[in-house]
């Protein structure tokens, strides 16, 4: 019984956050002000974080809040402010209605194409783990340990590569962003 209740609540929450995410995303793409848009995007990310948790990815949910909403989006906002773009000029920021309708249509087309995958009924087909004789995924696995293990074993190379990536990004950002010293000459 409790299971049923939990399941119902789970479902309710899942759809709730999903709908909020969709609504926030739609608001995000339609807001003219960059600041408002950025905040709606943050909202989407929070919703996603909630969904991650519900999908047994607690660690990911946490860093979603920390890294994405907390760091990346802050940087975005910071730049918006820095460039004084707080009030986007209404006319030119967005395409005209024709462009928007066309974009909507194209978006729907894309969605339709991607949604072809709904035909795949893969949960039945993809019982890979069973096929491979592995145990079903532990529902409590989403905490740090089970992630950290593979991260530093199977995915060690990728993990190390992120350091090079970040280093590159830092060097690049500095290179591009810093004031032109040579201009002074």
């Amino acid at each position: 019984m409790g299971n049923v209740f939990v399941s119902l609540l789970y479902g309710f929450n899942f759809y709730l956050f999903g709908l909020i995410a969709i609504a926030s995303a739609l608001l995000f793409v339609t807001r003219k002000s960059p600041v408002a848009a950025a905040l709606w995007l943050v909202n989407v990310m929070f919703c996603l974080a909630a969904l991650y948790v519900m999908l047994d990815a607690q660690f990911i949910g946490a860093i979603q809040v920390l890294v994405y909403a907390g760091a990346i989006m802050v940087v975005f906002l910071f730049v918006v402010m820095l460039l004084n773009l707080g009030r986007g000029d209404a006319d030119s920021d967005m395409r005209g209605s024709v462009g928007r309708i066309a974009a909507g249509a194209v978006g729907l087309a894309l969605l339709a194409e991607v949604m072809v995958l709904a035909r795949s009924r893969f949960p039945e087909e993809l019982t890979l783990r069973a096929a491979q004789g592995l145990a079903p995924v532990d529902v409590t696995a989403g905490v740090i340990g089970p992630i950290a293990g593979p991260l530093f074993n199977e995915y060690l190379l990728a993990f190390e590569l992120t350091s090079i990536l970040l280093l590159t990004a830092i060097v690049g950002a500095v290179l591009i962003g810093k004031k032109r010293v040579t201009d002074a000459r």
Partner: protein
Amino acid sequence: MTYDLLSPTQLSAALLPDLLLMGGAIVLMLVAAWRPESDAHQRTVGLAAIGLLIATMATVVWMSVRGDSALETGVIAVDGFRWMVDLILLLGAIGTIALAIEHNERDGITQAESHVLVLFAVAGMMILAAARDLMVVFLGIEIMSVAVYVLTGLNRRSARSAEASLKYFLLGAFATAFLLYGMALVYGATGQTQFAEIGLVIRRLNLIDNPMLLVGIGLMLVGMAFKVAAAPFHMWAPDVYDGAPTPITAFMAATVKTAAFASFLRIWYEAFYSVFNGWAHAVWWLAVLTMVVGNVVALSQKNIKRMLAYSSIVHTGYLLVTVTAASVLASTAFTFYALAYTLATFGAFAVVASMQPAGETDARISDYQGLWHVRPWMATAMAVFLLALLGFPVFGGVGFFAKWYLIQAAIAAPAGLTILAVILVLTSVISAGYYLQVVRVMFMMPRADEAVEPLPVGALTRAVLAVTVVLILGLGLFPSRLVEITQSNGFRPYAYSPALDMGLPRFEP
């Protein structure tokens, strides 16, 4: 030896050249930051970077001579194909830095870190060339891309440079999202991220018609096509190539493309081979469209960098033939072609770079008018590069054999791509129109009265020109050794079974 890539030590050993390069790059980064910006410092770091690259090259050669291999599964490949591609990438990087040192001086770019970024980019590419795991591919692409985004915008005085950088970045990120989505779906359909495993799972579970897999492959195709600038995902390339500093343009046109293609081939041959009938049509059409669009639009270019940009799009189209051909022979044709193309591209851009006056100007073809009369050798060299790009025998040297090899790969492909080969040669007729336009301007027109004397050419640029010309012409007469090397270093996927060829229906739309 055979590496067990699950062991960190052995993984490191298998990554020796990459690690050497990355480590060196980090050290150089510190060196670069140590002193204030100056031409001399920039030059020092650049030369050191070349040294590092040569050392890496030596390591690669050493590794390749050792002929090591890895276990069936693993995140990276240890095979000849990787070393072959690495060598081409490193060659390109050396060319880039050699050209950049002098070009930076001329354009007043004094950041020594720019060379370090090239090193990081190459490190990313080398990873890409080795990667056998979607995650590693993704990260490799990103390391490469992030570095190149920045390199494109290196000339901070230039609005064109900044614009190019922005366009590349925005569209690149957009395309990366598709690539990533594709990876997610492929992962979803197969539960794997390693190519070999993906290939095995597809075959074992017969996922050939699985929509999720197909959509995933499609989206990945979009991402890869963007990186290699295949039409219609090529729109960024002319603008970006145009705005970027010329050495970086050459880097993007040749080296980035080679790396992306290497990975493209690896994924498609190893992971998606059995879905050949799923993606072959799409790649076939992409190839055709790319050849046509690139060639046709290149005809109307007035700016030589844009012209070469379209030309590089065209070559993407040609290289897509190797993807479609899906055979070991095609992979060797790819490395051969990539080498020839790299040589010719660097040569051509070396000329462009040395012809470009300082400051923010269009590199118009008409500036080359009558070049033969004032710079006979440079004009001749340029003609050689263009003919190499055109794929013309003897005068275009190895470029011809590259094309020959492609045609051979196409016709000999299990799917028998004769029509594609015909389209390839017919569209390359169009390319004669614009390549020869430059030749004609250089040789057949008088020097304009108001034309300024071209700037003197620096020693490094001269060296690049000399090496590329000599290699192109020399390999154009005696390519046999190179053919042998590429053939012994073809890409043989672990999960590739020749028996599959037999079951493959002949394919020609």
